[in-house]
């Protein structure tokens, strides 16, 4: 079946640099996407979301870009800090209605070097 996937298991960046985490999705019917951050030993934490009628959404230091043509989602983190070190998941909304199911990728580990 169709699923969300992340290209890289690990991304290493220098403190202060910008980070870009990518995600490919294959279900063209998905209309809502979420990025989560999961620190070691904790549950996933909501970062930012985007609907399919948008191609960009900005939060505090984070930006999500959606390219429906190539079914690609990215999370950009500006001025990466040590506290950003975590696993990042993208998820797509697959189902709609009253039982919104999310399909998750396996995650990318972001390692911030001081």
């Amino acid at each position, binding site marked *: 079946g169709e699923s969300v996937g992340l290209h890289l298991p690990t991304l290493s960046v220098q403190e202060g640099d910008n980070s870009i985490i990518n995600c490919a999705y294959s279900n063209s019917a998905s209309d809502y996407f979420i990025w989560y951050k999961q620190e070691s030993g904790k549950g996933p934490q909501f970062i930012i*979301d985007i609907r399919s009628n948008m191609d960009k959404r900005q939060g505090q230091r984070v930006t999500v870009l959606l390219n429906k043509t190539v079914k690609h989602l990215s999370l950009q983190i500006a001025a990466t800090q040590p506290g950003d070190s975590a696993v990042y998941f993208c998820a797509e909304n697959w189902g709609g209605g009253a039982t919104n199911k999310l399909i998750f990728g396996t995650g990318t580990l972001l390692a911030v070097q001081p």
Partner: protein
Amino acid sequence: DVKVTQSSRYLVKRTGEKVFLECVQDMDHENMFWYRQDPGLGLRLIYFSYDVKMKEKGDIPEGYSVSREKKERFSLILESASTNQTSMYLCASSSGSILGTDTQYFGPGTRLTVL
């Protein structure tokens, strides 16, 4: 802020034991979910519930059951724990938007080890 709590952070059980994992949310959310998380496999949906006493199987329901007697509480039950159920278990809840923009909020997780 949404708060989802899970009864235990760490749990060690023996093969064959009956195990209860409890989850409580305080935002009056309609939907609740149980996932397990394993290295390299990501989050996999075990069961979910969109209303009190209602439940739906997820992708990997075998070996599990659930109970939702009250809106705020969703329990995952391992009738007879096995070693292959050693995993991180995550509970989530969402408001139940019909617009397809329904964010799920997660608890801290329960790391279950079955010996």
